[in-house]
Every structure is written in C-alpha cells, then in structure tokens.
C-alpha cells in the first residue's frame, strides 16, 4: 500500500472513532455530554492532520497539486472541511459540538473513503491554460468554499434532525438551536466569500487567457450554482422568523451542489449519456 493510502486509512479510522464518540456524547444526555467533548475534538483534529499528511504525500507523488486529480481534490475537500469545522467550533467558539461534529465526521469519512477506494491518483494532465497560478488559487478557493458549505450543510442537517427527533424517546444531548444557526451562518458566509473569490480569480484568468468569462469547465458552473445558494442562505435573514428552516434546507442543497460539482460532475454527465 502506498504511503498516502496509509495516511488516508488512518484518517478514516480516526473519523469513524470520532463519529462513535460524538454518538456516545449525544446518547449521554445533557448531563454526561461534557466528558466526551475533548476526546471527540482530539480525534477530529488528529484526522485533519492525517488528511493533510495524505494530501502532501499525494501531491509529492504526483509532483504537483492538480485540481484535475480527483483523489487530490477529494482529500483536499475532506481536509478543508475538518479544518474549517475546527476553526469555527474551537478557534472562534462558534459552538456546534456533538451532533454536527458527528455529522461532519461521517461526511468527511465518506469523502476519505471516496479518495481511498473509489478513485485513483492522477487524472487528466492540465493543459497550459490550466497550469497557471491563477487556476491553482481559483481551485484552492473553491475547495475552501466547498468545505465551508459542507460544514454549514452538516449544521443544517443537525437542525433538521434535532427538529424531527427532539422530545421523542429518551433525552439526548441536543445542541442548542442558536449554536447550530451560528455555526451554519458563519460557515456559509465563509463559503460565500471563498467561492466568490474563486469565481473572481477564475473569471479574470478565463478572460485573460481565452477572452470569455468561463473556461467551459462544468465544475465551475456547479460551484457557481452552489455559491448562489450560499448567498440565498446568507440573505434568508430577511425572511425573519421563517429564516431558520430555509437556511437549514438551503445549506444542505449548497453542500450537495458543491460536493457534486467538485467530485462528480464529469461522471454524472457520463451516466446521463452527455
């Protein structure tokens, strides 16, 4: 097994453990949740380190970071999601431990397994137009923004799960609604800024290189759609009291668009025979 595969496998195990710990924290109820917080965060942080190492090893093996290498993109997205979650939940004390942490762990675990088992390294070699620094910056912004949408989507999913299950059966350690909204809004605005920055750089480069606003890459169109939906989430505050449900639902849609746009558009077109 290649060194990067070992690092990915380690990350997958750590994420599975983190998901179990967060589930235990949820089941422990409001009084017992405290003792699970630190182990859960430690496991997520360790998984983030393992993913960054895996990304570095993959980049070293390919001798370049390429947004056209599906494995590198999947690992980068997984690492970005965890880093953003940790930065918001721990660094900025936005909140969102417990259920959203468990959901983030599960989604990132799926991305890690996708990078480990479903796709190989390599991918199409970028042409001269795709090798410029601007393209690297554009896709770094896109990965960061997509990570933000995934964190926000997990917060939105947590809100939906909480709304659907709270008060039923035994008492669980549900996170506070305000904390989930806080995490959702912070992650979504970060995603909106990063995706917009990626679109600005990409538009500028496409105009410089090809004289058109886009390079014809379908992934960019999906990420632009994800950006529009993140803007919708950001501006749902004007809906006042009704904004919460809309924000939660739209954040999940934005995350789905971003992940599909980054990792699955090409295959989706093949499946549809296009």
């Amino acid at each position, binding site marked *: 097994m290649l060194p990067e595969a070992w690092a990915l496998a380690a990350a997958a195990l750590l994420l599975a453990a983190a998901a179990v710990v967060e589930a235990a924290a949820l089941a422990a109820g409001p009084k017992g949740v405290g003792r699970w917080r630190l182990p859960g965060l430690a496991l997520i942080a360790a998984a983030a380190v393992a993913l960054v190492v895996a990304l570095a090893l993959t980049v070293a093996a390919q001798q370049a970071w390429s947004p056209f290498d599906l494995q590198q993109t999947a690992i980068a997205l997984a690492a970005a999601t965890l880093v953003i979650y940790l930065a918001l939940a721990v660094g900025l004390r936005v909140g969102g431990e417990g259920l959203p942490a468990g959901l983030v762990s599960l989604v990132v675990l799926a991305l890690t397994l996708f990078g480990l088992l479903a796709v190989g390294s390599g991918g199409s070699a970028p042409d001269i137009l795709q090798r410029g620094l601007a393209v690297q910056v554009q896709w770094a912004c896109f990965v960061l923004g997509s990570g933000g949408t995934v964190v926000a989507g997990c917060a939105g999913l947590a809100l939906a799960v909480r709304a659907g299950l709270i008060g039923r059966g035994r008492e669980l350690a549900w996170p506070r609604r305000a904390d989930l909204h806080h995490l959702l809004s912070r992650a979504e605005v970060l995603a909106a800024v990063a995706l917009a920055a990626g679109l600005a750089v990409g538009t500028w480069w496409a105009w410089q290189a090809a004289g058109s606003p886009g390079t014809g890459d379908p992934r960019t169109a999906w990420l632009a759609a994800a950006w529009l*939906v993140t803007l919708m989430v950001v501006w749902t505050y004007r809906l006042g009291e009704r*904004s919460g449900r809309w924000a939660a639902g739209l954040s999940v849609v934005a995350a789905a668009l971003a992940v599909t746009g980054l990792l699955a558009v090409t295959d989706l*077109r093949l499946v549809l025979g296009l």
Partner: protein
Amino acid sequence: MWRFFAAPATLLILLALLAVALVLSTLIPQIPSDVSANPQYWLALQPELVSPTNDLAQALGLYGIYNAFWFRLLLVLTGLALFVWAVESAELAWWASRGRWTPSTLALWGSHPLRYRLPVSRAPALIEGQLGECLAGCGYQTAEVARSHGIATTPNWVASRSSALLWGRPLAFAGLLLALLGLAVTAIWGWQSSQWQPAVGERLAVGHGTGYTIRLDAFEPLTGGEGQPDGGQYQSQITWLTGDQPVGQDLVGVGRPATRTGLAARQVGYVPDVTLRGVDQAGKPVLFQPGGVTSKATEQVNLAFGSSETQQVVVLPDQGFFLLLDLEPASGGDDPLLRLALLRSAEAEQQPLAVLRQSGAVSFDGFSLEVDLGYRPVLQVDYRPGTTLVVAGIVLAVVGLALGWLAGSRLVWIAVAPDQDRATVYLLALGGAGESGWFSRLVAQLQEELTDVA
C-alpha cells in the same frame, strides 16, 4: 414594483432559478461558439432532448441557455432586485452611520424583522434609564428616534453595535449588480473574432470599424524541447498596422494578451503545421495542390491541422497521385506523430511512406520530399468592454460579504409602551446572515436586568 423587487422571496427565487439554469447548462449539451454559424448540423448530432425534432427544447433554447431569452430576462430581473436591495441597504447604512432615526426609517428594516415583546412590571419612565445603562454595558450605542410633530408617541430608541459594517451589505449588492452590468455591456457591445491560425507574415484585418490589421511576425515556444511547444509556454510576436503602416509591436503569450485601444489579441493555443516541398526523378520541383483540385498548385505547401483535424490530403497533379497526411496529436509529453501515405489514383489501397515525429526527408519512386514539422499559433482578437466591471464587481461583493463575516453589525429598535402602571418593551432586530443568537442573548440579558429592577 419597488415592493415586489424588495421582497426577500423575489431575490431568493431569482437566485434559485439562476442556480438551476447554471446546473442545466452542464447537463444539456450547449452549442459551441465555433458552430454557431450552422447550428442545425450540430443539433442533428445531439441526443433527443436537444435534437431539432424536440420543439420544447428549441423554444426554450436549451441548447444555448446563456443566450436564451428567459435566461437574459432572469438576469435583468435579478439586476433590478439587486439594485433595489443595494439602495435600501445603503439607505439603512446611511441612517445608521448618522445615528438619526425617524419613525419612517423603520420601514427599511424589512417586513419580517426579528421581534420580541418583553413585559416589565414598572412604569416606562422608571425603566428607561436602566435600559440605557444595560445597552451601554453590552457595547451598544443608543440614539433616540425623532418623534413626529403633533403626534404623541411612546419613547423609541435604536441601539447599534458595529453599525459602520452595515456598509458591507450595499457593497455586496452593488458588487453583484456591477458584475451583471459588466456582463450586459460585454454582451451588447463586445465581439470576438473567429480563431486565426496564421503562418508567419500572414495578416488579419480586425474589422468592426477599428481600422487595425494584425500581422504575425514570429511564433516561438519558450520552454519546449526540440522546437516543439510540448504543452509549455509559447508566445507570438505581432505587429499592429493601420493600412500598411506599423503602429506598434507586441508579444502575445498564454494569459498575456496584447491590448490596443480596448482590443485584445490573445494566444489561445497552437496547432501542428506541416510544410512539404520536393523534387522528382529529374530534379524538378514537385507541384502540390492542397485541399482538392480547386486550389492553385505550388512548389511548397503549408498545412495547418486544426484542433479537430487529423487528416489532410494533398494532390500531386503532374504525377496523378495523392499524399495522405495523418496526424496523431501530441499526448503525454510525446510530440505529434505524422504518418505519410501514398494513394495512387488507380488503386484503392494506401501505400505507407513514413512515420515522422520530427522534420525529415521521405523518398519513394525517385521522388525526394522534405517534410518540416512545426507549429502555428491560434490567435483571437476580441473587444470586451465590460471585463473590468465584472471582476471588480465580484471583488466588491467578496469584500462586502467578508465585512459581514468578520463582524456582523447589530441594530435593535426599542419601543417602551405604557400598559396601565406597567410597561411593555418591544424589540425589533435587524437580522444578519441568518444569525439570531446575539438577539436572543441580548433579550435574555435585558430581561434579567429589567426584572432585577422590578
């Protein structure tokens, strides 16, 4: 009309429709710009969904969504909504920065502000001071709302924190509006020449009333080995002419267009180029006739292989046979591969002559041919007057959104209404980025403080 565009649902629905259109444009094949002159042939090759027999797809313009009437209408409506939102949020930021509020400015807080009703068991006059102290303790600045003349109203205040950052909102809306305007300006006044594959010395009249002609002076690979660009950097040297008079020289590289009075000449690629010349058994130059019998026969022929071309045929009119040139494009760092074959008029089968990766000589039946493998640039001239607006608009939107992310501004409208010997405090909050946690915390703190007073 203003209310329609100011309604939150309007902008959200327009953004949702735009997102759907963007996704659809990747799932339905879009007509390429280089076949726009004859789209019917291209359409005939497409799946049933966009074939000419599908009337609905034709009517909706699904094969060219970005040029469809409904997509452009969507952009216009979104632009109008962004304009209304930019004006309203700028007005709100203006009032907040001045700190002078009137009852009419409450309308700027939207139709669904976050609200809370806090009953307090004391007279209004007794709680006003405590309310001010509590808000100041939380870092808020308070400004009394001017009362209308002749109308007895209850005391109103607006409490604000980081209100200067409210300018981030109009900045974001204005940025997006600017980007849309840039796209519109480019679509209306912009143009683009078809792609040009010149040999050195060839000229292109730019047209469109510019009076300029471009001449290719040189094309050189910068990092490729053995004279092949090999996917590396490459550049062209061009001369701008008005009539026959040179007015300037420029280097054009990938991502480095040459610009002149708003025009841009861009290097969008390169194509392989094959030059043939030779002599027959008697040492006389061979005549070549490229592209069929209608063209003029010459002693040297120059053939450019377009991006979709892999085969060319050259007639040797005096000899009565054809040369077939098959080019396998460069891949994986390898140079392109040229296969030369002879096709005699009377025979159906090809006679392979040579396989070349570099320039070389080919001999057969007493003929000696020199084959030069080289490259030509693919250049494009365009006029895009709205480019700067689009990029500047998105950058402004990024800055506006980032301001809101770094520190959300907070505005609370507070009214104290007498209720017999008690009072009711009404709180309306301007929400920010879907976040209402701060408002809940403020309400909880006020409730605690005012209850203590009571």
